[in-house]
């Protein structure tokens, strides 16, 4: 017999090497980033039964044509001016709201020719089939920014915190439930002051 007694121990010296190999593999393949983007809600496919009559002055029409040019309320505009124009329209408060109330927090010019109240103001975004997606996103981004800036202003005035940061904390799964319950009424109040009415119409077929 060649061997006797206890079997020889397996050499574990290379275990660290194997573990390192695996570790490096997982290090390389790991992506911890989370995606981010613009959240939107599409309209349901069946139209509402009694569509409300909307006055033309309460609609802010933004058209992006196939050459990626902007037409805002029937006049051409540069993208950099869009945010201010949308803010002025939303914050106008020239008349009364849905329940006949005047907008006591609006700081706009109160032009009777522009929107009555933020809860009546609608932004209608139309695009051509040949519009480039990047441009469309840039326009959407500017319009969302207009809403966010107005909401931030009111949230700062009422609660001393930006709306966007409250919303981010509310959506963060790591936030404890108690804090969320506290944030929810605040967020809903701000959202009610400036409801996001951004309609994305189907593109014209030409």
């Amino acid at each position, binding site marked *: 017999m060649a061997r006797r007694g206890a079997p020889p121990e397996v050499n*574990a010296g290379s*275990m*660290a090497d194997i*573990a*390192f190999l*695996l*570790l490096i593999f*997982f*290090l390389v*393949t*790991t*992506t*911890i980033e*989370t*995606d*981010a*983007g*613009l*959240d*939107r*809600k*599409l*309209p*349901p*496919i069946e139209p509402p039964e009694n569509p409300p009559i909307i006055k033309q002055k309460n609609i802010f029409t933004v058209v992006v044509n196939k050459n*990626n040019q902007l037409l805002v309320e029937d006049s051409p505009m540069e*993208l*950099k001016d869009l945010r201010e124009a949308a803010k002025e329209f939303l914050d106008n408060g020239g008349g009364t709201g849905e329940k006949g109330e005047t907008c006591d927090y609006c700081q706009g010019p109160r032009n009777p020719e522009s929107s009555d109240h933020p809860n009546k103001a609608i932004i209608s975004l139309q*695009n*051509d*089939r*040949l*519009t*480039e*997606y*990047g*441009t*469309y*996103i*840039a326009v*959407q*981004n*500017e319009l*969302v*920014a207009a809403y*966010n800036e107005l909401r931030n202003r009111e949230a700062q005035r009422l609660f001393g915190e930006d709306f*966007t940061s409250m*919303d*981010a904390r509310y*959506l*963060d*799964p790591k936030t404890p439930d108690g804090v969320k319950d506290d944030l929810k009424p605040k967020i809903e109040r701000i959202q009610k002051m400036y409801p996001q009415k951004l309609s*994305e119409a*189907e*593109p014209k077929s030409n």
Partner: protein
Amino acid sequence: MAKFTKKKKGDLPAVSTASLPDIVFMLLFFFMTVTTMKDSSLMIKNELPYADQVQKLDKKDRVIYIYAGKPSPRYQDKFGTAAKIQLNDKFADVSEVANYVLAERSSKREELQNVLTTALKVDNETNMGLVSDIKQELRKVNALKINYTTKSGDAFQNLK
């Protein structure tokens, strides 16, 4: 007289490396648990546009992904250069989007089926016609919550 045993000079004891595998394994398990494998390889060019008013898309289990863009160079001789939709691992037609969303939805847990978001990962240079067609299909199957996935950055960069 007490006898002091002098330590031997110049002979440092070797640092024990016996616990090194444990440490490495600990790291290994950490990365194994946080890793998410890329589940589908992209067959299209996917340069996302920039935006800065973004919301995070947490909780990957309640997201359905739809990719669109021009086919990558190695697929171009077969599929052409027109923008196409990619669902999972293959190119798809617009009419297949609805079925795909329904199939994905039914594969999720029941309590998540009503809170699903559809993430549109669309290339910067795609025409809106294709995106509108996808949106129209999503409306048909009542998948109304969508997210235009973007990179974070100044939106004016999209115009160049």
